[in-house]
């Protein structure tokens, strides 16, 4: 999903288009920050940009660790269980433990762009 352009007002969070395209949409990040439930009042313009980078690093690390689990299982497809194992095995990912052992999304069928294939 490409961003509409480096200077799309909606996506870059400002008319002046602060920096080049990011790998994650800034407006969505900002929304998630506001809902984090800590009475977040105001968010500086650079905060979502910082998070875009930080999330990328996070996803990369968790993915790599998950892949290690996949390889250990002699598989070539990264499964949800691999992500869960990686999260549980890593101290700094402790905050994810409840999330990965409780994932309830599989009960519903969320609306996805990708086609469902089992």
């Amino acid at each position, binding site marked *: 999903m490409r961003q509409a352009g480096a200077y799309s007002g909606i996506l870059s969070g400002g008319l002046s288009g602060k920096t080049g395209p990011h*790998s994650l949409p800034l407006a969505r990040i900002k929304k998630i920050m506001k809902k*984090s439930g800590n009475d977040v009042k105001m968010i500086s313009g650079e905060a979502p940009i*910082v998070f875009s980078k930080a999330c990328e690093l*996070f996803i990369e690390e968790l993915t790599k660790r998950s892949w290690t689990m996949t390889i250990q299982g002699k598989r070539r497809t990264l499964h949800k269980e691999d992500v869960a194992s990686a999260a549980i095995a890593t101290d700094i990912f402790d905050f994810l433990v409840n999330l*990965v052992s409780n994932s309830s999304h599989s009960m519903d069928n969320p609306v996805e762009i990708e086609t469902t294939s089992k």
Partner: protein
Amino acid sequence: MDEEQDKLLPIANVGRIMKQILPPAAKISKEAKQTMQECATEFISFVTGEASDKCQKENRKTVNGDDICWALSSLGFDDYAEVIVRYLHKYREAEREKSANQHKSSSTDQDIEESNHKSSQPQQQIEAPNGIEFRVLDKGNSSSFKNPS
């Protein structure tokens, strides 16, 4: 249903980042992407919470980039914090140059946007086989903001 997805990072973006870091032949199940989507979203909430607490304690209303760097370190993500501090530095530098440019010149927006795009473009290939070692490439953002002749 749509609302739920709205609270998460988009799965396409998440999937792309995952794919980029894995070997080319690797496959990723859809559920794995969904799980990662949730985890990354939770990561934002988690770090924001810590940053926000700090702001409240210090009687500040706005959560800024420094607060997030601090929170990352505080929560054990020192490697990320290091990268982000540099990233933030470059971003701020680019912002300063951009506003300096806008004040003194009457050059077209296009020119400014072009040079901004080139030099404040922080995205680059991140290859980190083992430890987390990211290099933020310097795209020569010091002199490219001068008025084009």
